[in-house]
């Protein structure tokens, strides 16, 4: 098992956001983390990366305990995070954004440019001048440059134009074919479910259902994901 999260608990100040989250991602697997807004998806991701240090439960990456490690250490151990809202470094060029994160491995500038040819065209532009879709490509590219064992995408296609979404999904499918393990959060089920090998649903800070996408029937969708 690559990522093993058990009984995870997390707080923002005094208010508890996660009560009991169990989540696993195996090598080469794509897992969708689902749930309505405010149910704890982003908090789970933040807790895994130790950006919001968890106060209970365990987080292991390939057997290594991640709890209590600094965020940069967690990233070095092999978690590449594409945060919600992209968060590129606005006043660095596209290439500087990528190079700043680089660690040696299979993913290089050339390979990222092959995955996202747009980034190559825009290499000398400031990240702040990119469109939302291009920034998302850059954020994914930046995470890949760290040569992660597990890629985490929070709201992979939120707020992007439909055409751009297709490009992002195509890239995610390519990454899956390459055998990368991915944990992905997104709300567009028609695109998400075919990519995912497994789904975990959160409700009120608890993982309430885990199964294969085919098992996620209309009743379950209405109960846990409907608005």
């Amino acid at each position, binding site marked *: 098992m690559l990522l093993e999260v058990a009984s995870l608990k997390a707080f923002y100040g005094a208010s508890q956001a996660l009560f009991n989250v169990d989540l696993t991602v195996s090598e080469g697997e794509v897992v969708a983390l689902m749930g309505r807004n405010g149910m704890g998806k982003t908090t789970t991701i933040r807790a895994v*990366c130790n*950006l919001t240090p968890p106060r209970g439960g365990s987080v292991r990456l390939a057997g290594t305990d991640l709890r209590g490690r*600094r*965020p*940069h*250490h967690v*990233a*070095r151990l092999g978690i*590449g*995070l594409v*945060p919600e809202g992209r*968060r590129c*470094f*606005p*006043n*660095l*060029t596209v290439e*500087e*954004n990528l*190079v*700043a*994160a*680089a*660690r040696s491995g299979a993913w290089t500038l050339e390979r990222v440019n092959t995955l996202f040819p747009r980034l190559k065209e825009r290499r*000398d532009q*400031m990240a702040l001048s990119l469109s939302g879709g291009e920034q998302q490509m850059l954020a994914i590219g*930046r*995470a890949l*440059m*760290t040569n992660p064992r597990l890629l985490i995408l929070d709201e992979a296609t939120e707020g992007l134009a439909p055409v751009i979404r297709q490009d992002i999904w195509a890239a995610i499918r390519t990454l899956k074919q390459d055998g990368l393990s991915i944990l992905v959060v997104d709300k567009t089920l028609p695109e998400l479910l075919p990519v995912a090998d497994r789904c975990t649903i959160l409700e009120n800070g608890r993982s309430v259902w885990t199964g294969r996408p085919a098992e996620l029937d209309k009743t379950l969708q209405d109960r846990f994901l409907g608005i």
Partner: protein
Amino acid sequence: MTLSRETLINLILIVLLAAVPFVALGIGQPFYITLATRIAILALAAVGLNLVLGLGGLVSFGHAAFFGIGGYVAGILAAHASSGEALMFGLAGSDQMPVIWLVTLIVCGIVGLAIGAVSLRTSGVYFIMITLAFSQMIYYFAVSWPAYGGEDGLSILVRNRFPGVNSMKPISYFLICLGMLIAGLGLFSLIRASRFGAALQAARQNAVRVAAVGISPYPIRLAAFTLSGMITGVAGALYADLNRFASPSMISWHMSGELIVLIVLGGTGRLFGPVAGAMLYVVFEFALGGLTERWQFFLGLILLAVVLFARGGLLGLLAGKARHG
């Protein structure tokens, strides 16, 4: 390859600065050589600060400490060289600039590492205050150290030597300082283009995000702070040799403020920001200082105008927003 507007302006600035002493000699006004030398030295000091302030976004209000340490290293080594007395641990003094610069780099490196290691654990206003506190500590230490002049400062009887050059000739000394400035600018642009430079700037823009891609901001900032102090220190050594005098005023907080003002005037984070700023500052000081004793009042007005209307400084005004050049 086409030159960007900023690169062109940079070239014009450096050619302008380099031309001043020759024009000064031509019109028989050698005083202007000293002015140009002062510009080159202050620009070098600000290039050092620009590394942490411009790239790292860390407002160090204590860089005068490094400037002063550089000055005192030059003064103390020269004093021991002329008196023949041994320095601590039986080491001899020296009147050779390369030796003085090397010692300055080592001393400022150690001091920078120590100050940085403590200061960088804070941020924002606390960082400003703690760097100020450290430089004031060094200031008062210099004031109360009678062996090297105390409050009166330390005179350098004969300007230190540079192999193969008569450093007493103003134009030769100017060229030495210009050479050091160009070396400093080269180092700055190398750093900015490197992965280290990208990470330093990224840490300014979003420290949490930098950690999330596996880079710890602290050691990067510490390295930048140390390097920055070393560069400013060498400028201090040059400054002491220019005036043949090292004084506590080089370490006073006015000096730290002056360096920040230079950078803001010229353009924060830009390669030639410090050069443009130092030119503006020294020319103002000279031109306005000739008209009124209260020239700093007018400098204040200009600074206010820059901050309000030209956030990119002089270079931002001339070359536009894009940072690269």
